[in-house]
């Protein structure tokens, strides 16, 4: 079914009318309520009254992750904190994490876009859904939870981990829908085989997988192993969390709900639009959010877009899988990791930055692992093993708490980290995504 047929199947002119009115309202809203946006508008000499249609969006300033970081924790909020109903946190590039807030209306928006997403993936009211995304500060778990309730699913808030229990829930409750990261779906299959469970006979028929990059090859593996339709979901906490885009069962790109999340695909260097179908940076404007509305937010994700009507009947534009990043962000087990965060931690421990390298691997079981290689330097080398081991543990502890995921740390000899033209190679990604 299509959750909101009136909007999701609306012709382009009709959609443009809605988008235009919403952008006009949004421009005045942020200009009046948020000093950061007022300053940004003033700097470009643009006033809310200059915005007369969605095409005028080009006159408006961009917003970046730096804007969020510099206004930590609540500076980028347009609504006062007492009007905010829920807060989520994701990783920042350095120092402070990224904080996002939802008013009660924003939570309703989230519920409805997630309801649209779930329907897109083939869910029907009355289905049961096992949510194996993490609950907590991460937006994955609660986003699916709210959407499921909104559209009339029976939601099992299993959260991530505890694989044996996940599999028991699947066998005993017989949920039709599984929502988790694609790597976790592969990991669960390995565990299921060990336990003698025939994965082909699982109750799951629909999988909604996201929060990390995955390939068509992984899709095939998941579909073959579990006997399900595997669909892709895209989102980022700054915009709303999951529910920004969702693949339908046709699997020809992810539908972006452009009546509320207006997409532009730009050349990251010039800021100008690229042609339809060309690769560029995805920029999103949240047309109706109230807590933390963002204007022309630079996602740093490289995608392409098509405005052609989909065979499923929806007219909402479709974006490709993320093809790359304009920065060096990595996604490990659904968590955003920036090499600069690791640099920060190392600087904090040793005063000067040693050479380091992140090596990312995907285990046979499908889980991503980060190993941080740190080159030992004369000034912190010791003849005592215990001091070196203490240093190793200290780096590990600090990294685990900064990155919110477990890493392994290995002290290595000088020269181990590959250098090309004198510049150290900071990231080695062996996942073959």
């Amino acid at each position, binding site marked *: 079914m299509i959750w909101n047929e009136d909007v999701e199947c609306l012709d382009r002119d009709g959609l443009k009318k809605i988008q235009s009115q919403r952008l006009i309202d949004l421009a005045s809203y942020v200009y009046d309520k948020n000093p950061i946006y007022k300053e940004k508008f003033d700097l470009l000499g643009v006033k809310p009254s200059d915005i007369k249609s969605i095409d005028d969006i080009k006159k408006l300033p961009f917003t970046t992750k730096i804007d969020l970081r510099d206004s930590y924790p609540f500076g980028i909020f347009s609504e006062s904190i007492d009007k905010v109903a829920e807060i989520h946190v994701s990783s920042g590039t350095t120092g402070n994490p990224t904080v996002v807030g939802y008013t009660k209306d924003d939570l309703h928006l989230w519920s409805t876009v997630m309801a649209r997403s779930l329907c897109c993936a083939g869910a029907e009211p009355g289905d049961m859904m096992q949510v194996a995304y993490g609950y907590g500060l991460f937006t994955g778990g609660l986003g699916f939870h709210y959407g499921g309730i909104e559209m009339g699913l029976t939601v099992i808030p299993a959260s991530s981990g505890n694989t044996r229990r996940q599999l028991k829930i699947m066998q005993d409750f017989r949920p039709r829908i599984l929502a988790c990261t694609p790597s976790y779906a592969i990991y669960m299959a390995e565990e299921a085989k060990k336990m003698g469970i025939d994965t082909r006979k699982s109750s799951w028929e629909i999988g909604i997988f996201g929060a990390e990059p995955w390939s068509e090859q992984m899709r095939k593996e998941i579909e073959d192993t579990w006997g399900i339709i595997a669909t892709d979901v895209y989102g980022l906490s700054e915009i709303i969390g999951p529910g920004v885009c969702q693949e339908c069962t046709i699997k020809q790109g992810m539908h972006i709900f452009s009546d509320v999340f207006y997409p532009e695909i730009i050349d990251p260097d010039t800021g100008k639009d690229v042609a339809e179908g060309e690769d560029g940076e995805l920029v999103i404007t949240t047309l109706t959010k109230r807590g933390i509305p963002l204007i022309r937010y630079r996602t740093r994700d490289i995608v392409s877009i098509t405005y052609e009507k989909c065979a499923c009947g929806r007219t909402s534009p479709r974006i490709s899988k993320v093809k790359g990043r304009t920065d060096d962000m990595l996604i490990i087990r659904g968590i955003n990791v920036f090499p600069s965060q690791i640099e920060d931690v190392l600087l904090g421990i040793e005063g000067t930055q040693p050479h380091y390298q992140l090596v990312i691997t995907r285990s046979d079981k499908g889980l991503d692992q980060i190993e941080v290689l740190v080159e*030992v*330097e*004369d000034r912190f*080398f*010791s*003849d*005592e*093993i215990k001091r*070196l*081991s203490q240093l190793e543990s200290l780096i590990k502890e600090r990294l685990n708490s900064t990155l919110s995921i477990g890493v392994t740390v*290995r*002290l*290595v*000899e*000088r*020269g*181990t980290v590959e250098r090309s033209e004198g510049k150290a190679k900071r990231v080695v990604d062996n996942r073959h995504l």
Partner: protein
Amino acid sequence: MKITQISIFLENRKGRLSEVIDVLGNSSINVRALTVAETENFGVLRMVVDNPTKAIETLKDNGFVANTTDVIAVEVADEPGALASLLKVIDAGGLNVEYMYGFVERKVDRAMMIFRFDDTHKAADILAASGVKVVGESDIENI
């Protein structure tokens, strides 16, 4: 009286130890005593050599992470019970041993023990006062 120990950081990697020894051998440095302490991923090679200044230079020139530490070398008779009586002296003096290793000399019936104490100066004084034979840098060179 203390002597200089060379410590070298080594990854647990095949052939790494022989590379260190090769580098030193090529510079005509003689290794008198040697021990390796290791964890799962890395090890620290500790050694006493005839020419520590040249050894550290050579190692650094070859890109190794290495440093020097003051240790105390003590001569003991190569016979049962000799080390035990030395350790009693150390214990009685309230000294903390971080680690120790030993080697036997070829031509005479003596063994040499290398000690790393938490307080090298205090250890040297106590051992000397107890009549233990503490070996100096020049003795090491002449072994």
